[in-house]
């Protein structure tokens, strides 16, 4: 649906790599161009009209993000460069202060590198222990398996709400309940979920959430770090400098501004923030429920078509998202991706930044299609038709 909104789709393109990034609707492009053409001033300097307009648009987006994820306070929304930066900041500048040697952080083997490496780095620095929650036969996380992993030393559970290769949804609300009963924080990597379904941080009761603008029809280089206000108050500013300070007379007399400005030093990605605001309005106009339902339906259609092909090995038949990972029997994933590219079908090949997943699935590399609301059954038909004949793939992959 809404194909006509996307300039990229005016070309003959089948774009099935939305897990990597989404296409941008014209309204987002126009909104960012408008900033550069009509009021391209800096933020937080509202002494003249066009700068005042920047502040209005910038803070309006913060409010829109708050509403979009149903955060309690606007101050709980911090703009970052993306989910990666958000997760790094959470691990390094909140938990880096809070955790001690021997404390345990629970993650899984299907996390994206951005929700693994910040914890590994912290482990090397502080001596915290990273533990992997065992996944069930479908590579799912269960509350029971988490419960078995808990110890008095467990301090953090950091999980993607939807994973980027298996596409499974985690029971975040139940996990938060269990975690909070045991004084454990929950960090949610929302990179693959926030763009595709309604997110309500108060209902879930997550302590921190990270997501990217570019996966939700917004620009690259902008993302969000959500944290409960009382926790963000304790976060060390990742950067110090312009915009975030009250005064600095001497090293002993440095005073920072309140949240969220305190965590946003320097000139921010203004065009990115404004573009993100437009993307949120655009998605809300379509409706997150509608997007979610549409993707589920399209995934089922794709699955049903792919299951008929005997040489397709599906890695995640069970899944709750628009992500399907598979291999063509006996052909290296990247060769298949190159073959599809000859027909302007864009899919991802590789390990999808989830290198530890091999331990769970036994599969090192795969092809991944990840759907969004502008994909159609015709896109799936094109893909399936190209995959139907294995000899054709072998013939044309070089």
């Amino acid at each position: 649906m809404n194909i006509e909104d996307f300039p990229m789709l005016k070309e003959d393109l089948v774009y099935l790599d939305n897990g990597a990034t989404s296409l941008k609707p014209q309204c987002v492009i126009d909104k960012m161009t408008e900033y550069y053409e009509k009021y391209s001033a800096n933020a937080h300097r509202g002494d003249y009209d066009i700068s005042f307009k920047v502040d209005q648009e910038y803070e309006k987006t913060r409010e829109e993000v708050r509403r979009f994820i149903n955060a309690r306070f606007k101050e709980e929304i911090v703009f970052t460069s993306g989910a990666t930066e958000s997760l790094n900041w959470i691990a390094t500048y909140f938990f880096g202060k809070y955790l001690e040697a021997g404390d345990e952080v629970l993650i899984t083997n299907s996390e994206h590198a951005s929700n693994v490496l910040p914890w590994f780095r912290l482990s090397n620095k502080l001596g915290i222990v990273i533990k992997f929650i065992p996944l069930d036969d479908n590579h799912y996380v269960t509350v029971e398996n988490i419960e078995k992993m808990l110890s008095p030393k467990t301090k953090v559970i950091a999980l993607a709400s939807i994973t980027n290769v298996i596409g499974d949804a985690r029971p975040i609300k139940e996990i938060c309940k269990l975690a909070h009963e045991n004084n454990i924080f929950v960090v949610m990597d929302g990179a693959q979920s926030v763009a595709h379904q309604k997110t309500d941080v108060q209902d879930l009761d997550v302590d921190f959430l990270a997501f990217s603008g570019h996966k939700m029809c917004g620009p690259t280089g902008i993302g969000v770090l959500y944290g409960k206000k009382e926790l963000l108050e304790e976060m060390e500013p990742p950067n110090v400098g312009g915009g975030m300070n009250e005064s600095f007379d001497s090293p002993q007399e440095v005073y920072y501004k309140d949240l969220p400005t305190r965590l946003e030093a320097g000139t921010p990605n203004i065009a990115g923030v404004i573009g993100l605001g437009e993307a949120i309005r655009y998605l809300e106009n379509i409706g997150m429920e509608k997007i979610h339902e549409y993707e589920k339906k399209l995934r089922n259609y794709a699955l049903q078509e792919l299951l008929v092909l005997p040489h397709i090995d599906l890695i995640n038949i069970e899944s709750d998202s628009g992500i399907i990972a598979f291999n063509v029997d006996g052909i290296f994933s990247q060769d298949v991706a190159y073959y599809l590219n000859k027909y302007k079908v864009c899919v991802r090949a590789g390990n999808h930044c989830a290198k530890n997943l091999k331990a769970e699935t036994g599969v090192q590399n795969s092809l991944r299609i990840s759907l969004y609301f502008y994909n159609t059954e015709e896109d799936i038909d094109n893909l399936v038709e190209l995959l139907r004949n294995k000899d054709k793939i072998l013939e044309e992959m070089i």
Partner: protein
Amino acid sequence: MENREIILKHYTSSPYKKDEVTNDYQKIEVQSSTCVDHLNIYIKLKDGVLVDGYFNGEACSIATSSCSILLTNVLNKRVEDIKKFIANFEKMCNDEPFVEEDLQEAIVFKDIIHQGNRKSCAFLPYQGLKKFLEEN
């Protein structure tokens, strides 16, 4: 034989692709920075001559066949000549003037290197061997 057939031959039945690992070879591990291609090249040098080599790893048809063709061309060659061979292949990859006949079968990648990212796939084994010879 067509280029495609030569590539497929080296991809599917390379005489140099072996899973076994022996200690008396020097290992060159090379990983693509843009995709998942990962090759382990094992070589034996004696008196400035590359006397034996094989490889394994997980990589696409282009990286795999390129590695096989590279080994075909450098076996029993002096290190200095191998460096020249690599430099000539690199020139082809960079669209610089190169000596076509010196590349032997490696010329099969002449067009493929212009297909998107495949230049880095074809060059990957060369990149690994080049670095190793420069550092050793």
